[in-house]
């Protein structure tokens, strides 16, 4: 028997629990993708209605109305206006919630005007008693010309009712609730006459929005129906007032609210959480807690992943037949995959905390607290979240910038977030600080080394704000600046929503950025283990010859290290290191550091590993101290040490500012949908890094 599929679109205001309704309907049968050309997430889920019918459910971005003010909202309108779109729904499900029904119905009446079968879901019905709200469902159904499903997605009540209503969608009335064209009858009459085959309300939406509609040229329509911006706005205002009048009249009869029953926990919580002093105090305590747990909790699984991959590499190296292919697997692919998976614990924890804070409604309060401060730097209150997340890893942080509506503020946030000291910089900082900063204490208790580390964190944050400020002045982007943040009531986060969110975001990271990290690791491996010419090929013989000709006896144990070093020097990577030597020499680096810098373009933490290889450190167990000793003893030809205060500070500054993270560039590309911004970011960050390292070295030399 042929299976029938009903296409359903889920639409609703933000904070109505639309996503939980979606999750309840579809469970984990979801696909997350992007709309072509834009970074708006496209979520499609599947759900079985009965034996012969299933539904594809499209979760559209939350919107307050059909008047778009962001790309997310544009998606909704473009879909609803275009009956030829493959995703055009057979039936629309508008999700509203009990407490804000009045506002939610505005969107509902607009969608009804498009004459698409529409079901109204009134969610969070479990809060009705608490808030003293009663609804006359039959009356509301008659007035709103629809079928209503009263649900509580949180308690999984009414989900079957939604499915039943979807099945019966063909019996839904499609006439509008009110006549919007009465706001200017003359104008709308003219429209109707000019385009007799089209719905007037659709035409009106096309005129007031920036959307393309069928084959009608917007400009052609505009020219004959031009109205000034102010006039259009006035009409839109009239339309909104008219809709609210209708809604108010309907709710006056259909809804009774006993205000004395409305317990006001949210208001009381707000008084504390947005308090002048306690507000910030609580925020910083929460922040501190998040940092602690991200670093503490994720170090266990991270060490575990690290160890397992090292074991796997050793295992394959000893059990596979030696050869090029085995080398590719053990030195390229396995460390590459390990390099991706190692980020998972931190990313998952971070998303866990962020989605808990978001679901609970607290995030809006942080935005409210921080907006004034951030705005001075061209950022928004909403930039706080990405900047905080950046201390773990810039990748999830940049993904977290999505909810900033203002494109300019979002772009600046994305561009400056990688300056924040991420966890990958830590191993580099640790070894360099140990080398160049004496183990002394100032004032008896402040460790000089610890202080340096803190200064580096502050430096990263400072330069991020400074660059944001400069970008704010330089970038000439025409975006309407507005800041309207809804402060939703506090709720206890739902485990299912948080769980699905964490899984989806982590998956998107692994498959998105992961591919690039893997590819680059393989390329780096190739460049480091292959070289042109006879010198690379005959490294063994040349070293043998050297040992043979040596006037003093050579310990045979060092021969493999000498060979490895000689090979590296003549590999493609070594040649590249030599080639860039003139460029990095003014910074105080030799070609070996050059190689480490080049290879850590893939990921910063590679620096230590590369130096370990270069400085022929054999003993793995004492890696840290031995590398340090080797680095300390490394000397220039004239006998002066390679790592002194000047070159050390210069390196620290370079690592603090340079864009050396291919995965971040990949994610910036994904989020901005062009190579332009990641390239600009690469140039300006590396520029700042180079100049500051140069200045530091030349001054301290």
């Amino acid at each position, binding site marked *: 028997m042929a299976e029938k599929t009903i296409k359903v679109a889920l639409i609703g205001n933000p904070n109505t629990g639309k996503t939980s309704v979606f999750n309840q309907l579809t469970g984990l049968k979801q696909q997350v993708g992007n709309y072509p050309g834009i970074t708006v997430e496209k979520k499609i889920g599947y759900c079985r209605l009965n034996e012969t019918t299933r539904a594809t459910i499209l979760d559209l971005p939350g919107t307050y109305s059909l008047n778009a003010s962001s790309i997310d909202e544009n998606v909704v309108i473009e879909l609803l206006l275009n009956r030829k779109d493959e995703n055009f729904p057979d039936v629309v499900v508008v999700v509203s919630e009990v407490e804000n029904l009045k506002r939610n119905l505005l969107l509902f009446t607009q969608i009804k005007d498009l004459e698409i079968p529409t079901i109204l879901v009134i969610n969070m019905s479990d809060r009705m008693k608490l808030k003293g709200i009663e609804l006359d469902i039959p009356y509301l159904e008659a007035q709103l010309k629809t079928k209503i499903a009263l649900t509580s997605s949180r308690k999984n009540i009414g989900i079957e009712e939604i499915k039943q209503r979807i099945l019966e969608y063909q019996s839904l009335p499609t006439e509008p609730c009110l006549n919007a064209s009465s706001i200017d009858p003359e104008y709308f009459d003219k429209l109707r006459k000019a385009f007799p085959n089209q719905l007037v309300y659709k035409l009106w939406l096309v005129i007031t929005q920036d959307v393309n509609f069928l084959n009608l040229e917007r400009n052609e329509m505009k020219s004959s129906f031009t109205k000034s911006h102010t006039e259009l706005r006035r009409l839109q205002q009239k339309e909104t007032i008219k809709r609210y009048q209708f809604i108010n009249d309907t709710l006056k009869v259909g809804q009774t609210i006993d205000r004395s029953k409305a317990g006001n926990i949210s208001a009381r919580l707000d008084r504390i959480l947005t308090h*002048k002093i306690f507000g910030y105090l609580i925020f910083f305590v929460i922040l501190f807690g998040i940092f602690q747990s991200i670093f503490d909790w994720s170090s266990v699984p991270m060490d575990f992943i690290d160890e397992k991959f090292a074991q796997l590499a050793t295992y394959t190296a000893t059990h596979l037949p030696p050869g090029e292919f085995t080398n590719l697997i053990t030195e390229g692919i396995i460390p590459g995959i390990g390099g991706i998976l190692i980020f998972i614990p931190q990313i998952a924890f971070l998303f866990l905390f962020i989605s808990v804070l978001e679901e609970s409604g607290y995030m809006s309060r942080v935005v409210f607290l921080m907006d004034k401060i951030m705005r001075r730097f061209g950022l928004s209150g909403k930039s706080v979240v990405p900047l905080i997340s950046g201390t773990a890893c810039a990748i999830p942080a940049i993904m977290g910038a999505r909810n900033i509506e203002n494109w300019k503020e979002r772009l600046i946030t994305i561009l400056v977030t990688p300056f924040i000291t991420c966890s990958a910089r830590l191993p580099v900082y640790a070894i360099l600080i140990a080398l160049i900063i004496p183990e002394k204490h100032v004032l008896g208790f402040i460790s000089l080394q610890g202080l340096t580390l803190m200064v580096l964190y502050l430096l990263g944050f400072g330069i991020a704000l400074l660059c944001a400020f400069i970008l704010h002045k330089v970038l000439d982007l025409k975006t309407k600046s507005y800041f*309207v943040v*809804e402060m939703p009531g506090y709720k206890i986060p739902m485990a299912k929503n948080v769980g699905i969110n964490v899984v989806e975001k982590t998956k998107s990271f692994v498959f998105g950025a992961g591919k690039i990290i893997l590819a680059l690791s393989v390329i780096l491996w190739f460049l480091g283990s292959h070289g042109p010419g006879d010198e690379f090929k005959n490294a063994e013989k040349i070293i043998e010859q050297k040992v043979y000709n040596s006037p003093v006896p050579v310990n045979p144990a060092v021969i493999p290290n000498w060979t490895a070093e000689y090979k590296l020097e003549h590999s493609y990577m070594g040649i590249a290191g030599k080639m860039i030597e003139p460029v990095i020499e003014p910074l105080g680096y030799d070609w070996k550091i050059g190689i480490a810098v080049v290879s850590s373009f893939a990921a910063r933490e590679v620096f230590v590993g590369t130096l370990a290889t270069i400085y022929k450190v054999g003993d793995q167990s004492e890696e840290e101290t031995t590398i340090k000793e080797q680095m300390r003893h490394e000397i220039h030809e004239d006998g002066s040490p390679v790592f002194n205060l000047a070159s050390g500070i210069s390196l620290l500054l370079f690592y603090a500012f340079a864009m050396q993270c291919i995965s971040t560039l990949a994610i910036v590309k994904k989020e901005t949908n062009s190579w332009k911004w990641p390239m600009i970011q690469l140039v300006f960050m590396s520029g700042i890094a180079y100049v500051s390292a140069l200045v530091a070295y030349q001054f301290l030399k």
Partner: protein
Amino acid sequence: MKIGQQATIVEFNIDTIPLKLLEMGCLPGNRVELLQIAPLGDPLYFTINDSHVAIRIETARQIEVTF
């Protein structure tokens, strides 16, 4: 307006007010209540037409109210 004070919206500058605010119920005749002022004096946190919204002072200046 002071914290906790209520007022009625009279008029606003239609060209500069975000449409989103109108949709939230910021329309002439509706009641507003100032709930909180952010610690640095901006933004402001209102209840408008039963919705809880935070807006920046520059936006709030465009809205005229009577008590």
